[in-house]
């Protein structure tokens, strides 16, 4: 019998703690597959965020560190500058990267740090119970926007990738979505490219923003959540390559 699909070695053989329909499990697998395909497992260090993916190291079998909320790009900078031969990636949610860690990601990009950043945008704070994120869409109801987000009260959703693409130190920015098989494939291609650039020693930061479903706090079934990415989220966060 021909094997058409198998678990990649850098993905641990265990169930995840993620909710049904969550995008993190898929994103973890894609990261692990890219690490194995590029054969960089033995020189890769992963940085887990504060948020639902804090236990990243329970699923991805590389050296890993857990860091303070939002500080991953600064921690990554400390690692990469002292270990230029290592491959450093941070895996950050939208609360982590776009809210509390806005300064760190901006300045890591600004300095042109040679890093790979996987930015999971699910438009909400998942781990703390579904509060508004900077990326929450207008009208979206969350634990802290019970009447729906309005531009007047909470401002517009923050488009971090567009901001990052403006920086000379950032060499690659792409936004993809885990909204179906085609989206998953495109996401993997983008993640792989973001790693390849670092492997090649390209001078600058590579960022992939992944729109990812959070059925639990969007309060909708998984199938509807992927649909919501397509119909609503992509209006605010258009897909495609923004730079590089």
């Amino acid at each position, binding site marked *: 019998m021909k094997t058409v699909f198998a678990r990649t070695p850098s993905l641990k053989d265990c169930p995840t703690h993620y909710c049904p329909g969550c995008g993190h499990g898929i994103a973890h697998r894609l990261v692990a597959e890219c690490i194995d395909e590029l054969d960089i497992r033995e020189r890769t260090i992963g940085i887990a965020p504060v948020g639902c993916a804090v236990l990243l190291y329970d699923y991805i079998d590389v050296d890993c560190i857990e860091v303070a909320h939002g500080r991953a790009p600064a921690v990554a900078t400390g*690692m990469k500058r002292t270990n230029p031969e290592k491959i450093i990636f941070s895996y950050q949610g939208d609360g982590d990267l776009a809210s509390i860690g806005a300064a*760190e990601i901006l300045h890591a990009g600004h300095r042109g740090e040679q890093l790979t950043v996987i930015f999971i945008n699910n438009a909400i704070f998942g781990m703390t119970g579904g509060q508004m994120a900077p990326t929450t869409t207008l009208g979206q109801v969350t634990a802290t926007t019970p009447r729906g987000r309005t531009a007047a009260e909470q401002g517009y959703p923050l488009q971090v990738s567009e901001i990052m693409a403006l920086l000379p130190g950032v060499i690659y920015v792409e936004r993809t979505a885990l909204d179906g098989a085609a989206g998953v494939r495109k996401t993997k291609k983008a993640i792989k490219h973001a790693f390849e650039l670092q492997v090649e020693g390209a001078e600058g930061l590579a960022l992939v923003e992944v729109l990812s479903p959070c059925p639990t706090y969007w309060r909708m079934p998984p199938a509807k959540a992927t649909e919501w990415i397509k119909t609503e989220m992509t209006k605010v966060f258009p897909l495609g390559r923004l730079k590089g």
Partner: protein
Amino acid sequence: MSQRVLMCGNEALAEAAILAGCDAYFGYPITPQNEITAYMSRRMPEEGRVFIQSESELAAISMVFGAAATGKRAMTSSSSPGVSLMQEGISYLAGAELPAVVVNVMRGGPGLGSIAPSQSDYFQATRGGGHGDYRTIVLGPSTVQELVDYMPLAFDLADQYQMTVLVLADGILGQMMEPILFEKRPGRELPPKDWALTGAKGREQNIVRSLWLAEGKLEEQNRKLQAKYDQIQKNEVLCEEYRLEGAEIVVVAYGIAARIVRSAVSRARQEGMPVGLIRPITLWPFPTEQISRAAEQFRLFLTVEMSSGQMVEDVRLAVAGKAPVLLHGRPGGGVPTVDEILDIIKELSVSVKR
């Protein structure tokens, strides 16, 4: 460098860190410690090592966290308001048990305070400073030469115990120039950094973490930390005693305040007053035992510090009611003079004679 050189404290400690094998320095400008950052920006690249001016103190300590996790010797420096910002990272360093050296060239507070020298971060330094049950080793040098001598010790202690060592200086020590000698001394034998993140090559994955969710796990981790701190309290106390023979009054002071007190004690002795000095060098672990023993012997204690009275609490805990403990504190950038302290000693000498 086997000859004496004239350097300010900030530059001297930076060079000492380089000699101690500091692989990476990360810092953000703040007065009165800017000479450290400027010196490192020139010298670290010369040595083929890493220098980054970070976007904030939060980022600086996070960069230290990252470099330390890969097994490198990393440091940062700042002054009081900046060190407040670093408390997040220092707590994470404690939780993750990573070695780091942090220099605080203290200035007056609270808030933006002033750029004048102060010792008002003693509480923050010796009580952990950030959230959670933890300690940092705190060294309190009182001369530029000691700043130089304690930098290699700071890195060794950090590596030995996998924790933050805080070098607590102040604006005077940082700015003052003194002739100093850089002497290469043998370092400590240190455990291998087999926990470091270097890529999982030929071994299982290493994880550096401070999150322990399973029931009882965090308590267990905290007990492990406390056991380590107990060892440090037992083995690493440094303290200097000066002119205690025949004394009745003991002044307790550290850092630059101790330097001033030493002159006052020396003059008081010339005038026949029964006074000596105990100078804690490690502020944590505090020389509790030494002061407790002294409390059996001497009649009166006076703490002199450049704050409203912070170390005095540790002195009182050590003396435990066996003798009166008085305070002469100069907060908000005030610096006591030798004459000022001498006058107090004179008054106290009269009162002990009565």
